[in-house]
Each structure stands twice: as C-alpha cells, then as structure tokens.
C-alpha cells in the first residue's frame, strides 16, 4: 500500500520536474541559492554556461548534508551554475527512497547529476543516467563499478583506517570493541569498519559485536545500554555515524563508565563538547563543505572539457581529539 502511494507521489514529482524542465529554458531555476545566485546564473546563462545540476542528497535536512549544501551554494554563486538539491528527508527509509529521487532527477534531464552512491540500488541508475548522456559524479560515497565519471569524498578506507589507528592510540593497543553503525546496508560504513579491522589487526584489539541503530539517537542509546549489560568485558566503542558515538557518550556519562574509550565520526557541536569533557576520545572528521564545493566545480569542468584530471578525489579526514579540538578547523 505504502509503496503504491509512494509510486503515485513520485509520478507527481516526476510530472512537476518535467514541467520545471520545460519552464527553465525561459528563466533560470529558482533554488536555495537566493537572488545573488540567480543573478549570477542569469549572467552565466548569457555567457552560455549556466549549467543546471541536480544533487541527489541521501537525507535532506541533516546537519552534515547542510554543510555539503552550503559548499554547493557557494560554488553555484562563484561559477554561475545552479544546483537543485533533492532527496529523502526520512533517515529510516532513505536507502530505498533515494532511488525514486534519482529516477526523477534523471527524468528532468539536467546537465549533470551528483549523488550519494554507496547503495546497491544506485549502480544501475547511474548507468542509466550515463546512457542518456547525463554525466554523473559520485559524492561522499562511491559506486566504483558504475559508470560515474569520478568520485569526490572521503576515502572510506582511509577514514576507517584512521579510526582504527586512533583507537589503538587511545587504548594503548589493547581493547575489546563494540561497533554501533547506522546502517548495515551502507557500503561506506561497512568499508570503514573493514578498514578499522585492518588498522587494528596487529594490536590486541577484538571486535565483540556490531549493532545497527538506523541513524536514530534514541535507538542508538537503547542499543548502547544493551551492549553495556551484555558485554561487561567491553572497553571501547566505535560509532560509525555522528549519532552513534553521541549515544555511546550519553550512556557512558549516565552510567559512569569512565574507562570506556569512545571513537566516532563527524564534528557536530555536541560531539566536540563531549571531546572537550573527555567523554569521547576522538572522532574522524570529514569535510562535506569541500565535497559540495568541489563537486560542483568538477561537474562544470567535466562539461567544459569532457574530462577531469582524476577519477577519485579524496577530501581527506582529520582525527580530532582533546589536543586539537579547538584548533583543527584553522
């Protein structure tokens, strides 16, 4: 039932985006860029390169993706392009819904598409876009076997490896670790976990269990509480998304588990406060702003020149601990 309704709704979205596509030949698209970007877009359109892009975002409205969108907006303003941001808003169902948004994005035939790509459903859709002559850039998570022309984002292996090295350093090389991840279906998270394992292979670090939290703080707290009850021998937790490590921190604080070492991802303000208070040991911080900014730049470069210099652009990560928490952004 739900699926059928979604299909009907997507048909609606599709129809709207087609109309939108027709209308846009007269006027530059209106999007979050505001009037400044519209003016720029108009100027650029006059010069003949007012490209229109679509960014298929996995969860619109999430802080991390807003940072990425800020980078996109900045690049749009500077380069005279315009990028429409579309995508699911619901973390619990985005893994399936994103395919519908991708379909709609292809149907509206933009000059190029960039999108979150690390889900099985995306591969064939990326190939479909390419076949229809719409270049596709993978952003934040890659689909290396698809026909995307390049990938920009954190190299998940490097990021995961860094989390493992950080864990080894913070625990002195001996730990029994539980892993909280937001989705077992996320190739990126799973690769990060694999890289973590590789990084700690030479140490006395063992993984006790892995639990899925659906990217929901309340679920993550429940899972963390259950982990604490189940594994008294646990000495460390790896949280592969922002809310996972925050949930671990909350339970650590509530239960007074002072010796538990927490390693996670992303630099939300609350996470940074936990690091300052010594509750979270360290987090691997990605750079979504640069992903968004460089993503738009790469799309334009590809359309202008027919190619880009590299196939993979690693925007890099920093391991943030109490030592650099107030200086790493500089």
């Amino acid at each position, binding site marked *: *039932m739900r699926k059928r*309704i979604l299909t009907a709704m997507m048909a609606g979205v599709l129809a709207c985006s087609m109309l939108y596509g027709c209308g846009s030949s007269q006027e530059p698209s209106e999007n979050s860029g505001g009037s400044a970007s519209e003016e720029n877009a108009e100027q650029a359109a006059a010069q003949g390169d007012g490209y229109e892009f679509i960014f298929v975002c996995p*969860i*619109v*409205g*999430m*802080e*991390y*993706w*807003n940072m990425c969108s800020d980078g996109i907006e900045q690049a749009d303003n500077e380069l005279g392009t315009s990028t429409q941001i579309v995508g699911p*808003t*619901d*973390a*619990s*169902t985005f893994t399936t819904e994103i395919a519908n948004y991708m379909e709609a994005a292809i149907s509206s035939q933009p000059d190029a598409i960039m999108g979150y790509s690390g889900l099985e459903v995306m591969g064939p859709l990326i190939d479909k876009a390419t076949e229809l002559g719409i270049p596709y850039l993978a952003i934040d998570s890659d689909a290396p076997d698809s026909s995307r022309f390049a990938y920009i984002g954190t190299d998940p292996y490097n990021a995961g490896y860094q989390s493992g090295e950080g864990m080894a350093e913070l625990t002195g090389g001996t730990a029994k670790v539980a892993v909280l991840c937001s989705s*077992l279906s996320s190739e990126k998270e799973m690769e990060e976990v694999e890289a973590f394992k590789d990084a700690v292979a030479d140490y006395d670090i063992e993984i006790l*269990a*892995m*639990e*899925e939290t*659906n*990217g*929901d*703080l*309340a*679920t993550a*707290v*429940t*899972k963390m*509480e*259950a*982990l604490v*009850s*189940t594994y*008294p021998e646990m000495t460390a937790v790896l949280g592969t998304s922002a*809310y996972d490590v*925050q949930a671990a921190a*909350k339970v650590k604080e509530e*239960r007074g588990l002072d010796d538990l070492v927490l390693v996670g991802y992303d630099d*939300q*303000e*609350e996470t940074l*406060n936990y690091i300052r208070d010594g509750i979270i040991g360290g987090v691997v911080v990605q750079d979504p702003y640069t992903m968004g900014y460089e993503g738009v730049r790469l799309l334009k470069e590809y359309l202008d020149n027919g190619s880009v210099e590299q196939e993979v652009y690693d925007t890099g990560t920093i391991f943030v601990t109490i030592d650099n928490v107030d200086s790493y952004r500089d």
Partner: protein
Amino acid sequence: MKVIKKAMKMREVGVLVPLLLLWIITYFINHAFFTSTNMIALFRSVSITALGAIGAAFVFCGGMMDVSAGSVYGLAGMLAAIAMKDWGMPVAAAILAGLLVGVAFGLVNSLIINGFEVPAFIATLGTQYIARGIVNVISEGRSYTGFPDGFNAIGGMGFFGIPWSIYISLMVAVIAAYVLKYTVFGRSLMAVGGNPETARTCGINVKLIRNAAYIINAVLCALAGILSTARLETAQAAAGSGWEMTVIAAAIIGGVSMYGGSATILGAVIGVGIMETLTVSMTMIKVNAYWQRVVIGIVIILAVGMDTFKRKRMSGGK
C-alpha cells in the same frame, strides 16, 4: 481457580504470554537482562513509545489511521528545544509550545479527514511530510542540545530511581484506559469504530468523536517527543523517523483492531513492551545484527498469530 480462569480469558493475556516468553528466553541466555539498570532502561523506552501506542489505540478504535505520529513526535521535541534555546522561553512555556504542536496537528488531521473527507492514510501521510518538513525548516538540520536543567530533569530520574517518563506514561495509561472503558466518549468511540452508520443513527456526533480521538493521539505523540528530547538532552531533526510504524505494530500486537470498535490500552502497552524488548533482546542474546530484522519480523507474526489462535479457540472456533 476461577480467578485464574477469568484472568486467562482476558484479552491481554494473549499478548502477555509472548512478552513473558521473550523475557524468560533472554534471561536464560543472558542473566544481565533482569538487572535493575537494564529493566529501568527497558521500561524507560517502553514508557515513551507507549504514549504513541495509546494514541494509536484511540485512533484505531474509532476505525481510523494515523501515520503522522513520528513526525509530530519529532516536531514537538524540536519546537520545544528551539523555544528554549533560540527564543529564550521558560521550560514550562516551551513544553506547552511542544504540546500545542500536537493540538495543531490533531486539528489539521481531523479537519482534512473529517472536513474534506480525504482518506485517513493519505491525509496523515501528507501531514507526516509536512511536520517533518517543518522540523527541517526550523532546525535547518541542526541538532539542539544544552537545555536548562529543569527540562532535562523531566527526562531524568524521579522518585525511587525510576525515570519520570515511566510515572507520566503510567498515569496517561490509567486515565486512557478509564476514558476508553467507562466514559460516554470512550463508548461512543467504540461505537463509531464498530459501525459509524449505526453510531450516527444512535445520535452520536461521529465527526466530533473522531476529531477528539485525533487530537488526543497527536497530543500524546507530542508528549512522547518532548519526553524523548528531555531524556536524550538532544533534539534531533530525524528523531521519530519510522516511529509511527513501531507504534502501529505495537498497538496491533497488543490486540487493537485495525478495523475499529475494539481496543485495549493495557494490550497496546504490552505490545510496546514486545517491540522494545525485541530491540534490547536481540543485542543481549547476541543475535547477529544482519539477522535481527528477520528475527523481529518472525516474532511479530508469531505474537499476533498466538493471540489470534487463542481468541479463535475461546470463541468456539468461529
């Protein structure tokens, strides 16, 4: 003996059995299950989700449907957070603002469904998107934290080391059970759910009753969202995503009929107990994370199956 026989005939027993089985199995595999910390943690999550299931019981009982619960939960928590952090409102006013979100969405839902006669599923699917959209607009995807102590205390521990949310939820459950069973409104709601035409000819204002049920439901969802925000000391833009499904599943497991006319608050709460226990038990009995959803799905079907089987036998194989 008579008492036991009578107790066995109570509808709730049918769902209590799978819950107890689940507890016993978990305990045998992991003795840490019945520790007080673990039980308090479990009942704490039950208490918050139970509010939604009680709301769902009212809506289902009147023969209706609501899938906007999770978004209303998210919006109420977020609005209360923003009211405190950005608008500098005192704790009580912020909580009131959050509850008003419930009133507003209850009204909107009932207006769309009973005023414009849009099917309930579609109407509440629409408001689900709207409420989640408003969360994103007002929060810009940020999570809010650092609330006044008075607010966080509501999500914290109360008398005898038991979280306030458990007391609140218990109180709501008792009142709801009373309202549903012993008041004119409750009986009218059952009648409306059972057969709206008959109810109408009996002089019941069907629309009014249904509107009231939607408002009660949305206010309870808002309350749950506020309590969860206080408990986590964080308002998260994605909070409550998919929560409506947990709530609906819990209510149905608890014997609340999706076709209206019958509901039990105790049953709905036990249903929540099963859903929340599953989340905890899967970890505690060390079920591989990849298999957890499969197991949860099977247990849900078994729980409802056992209950249906028992009721069929009791009603003479009808």
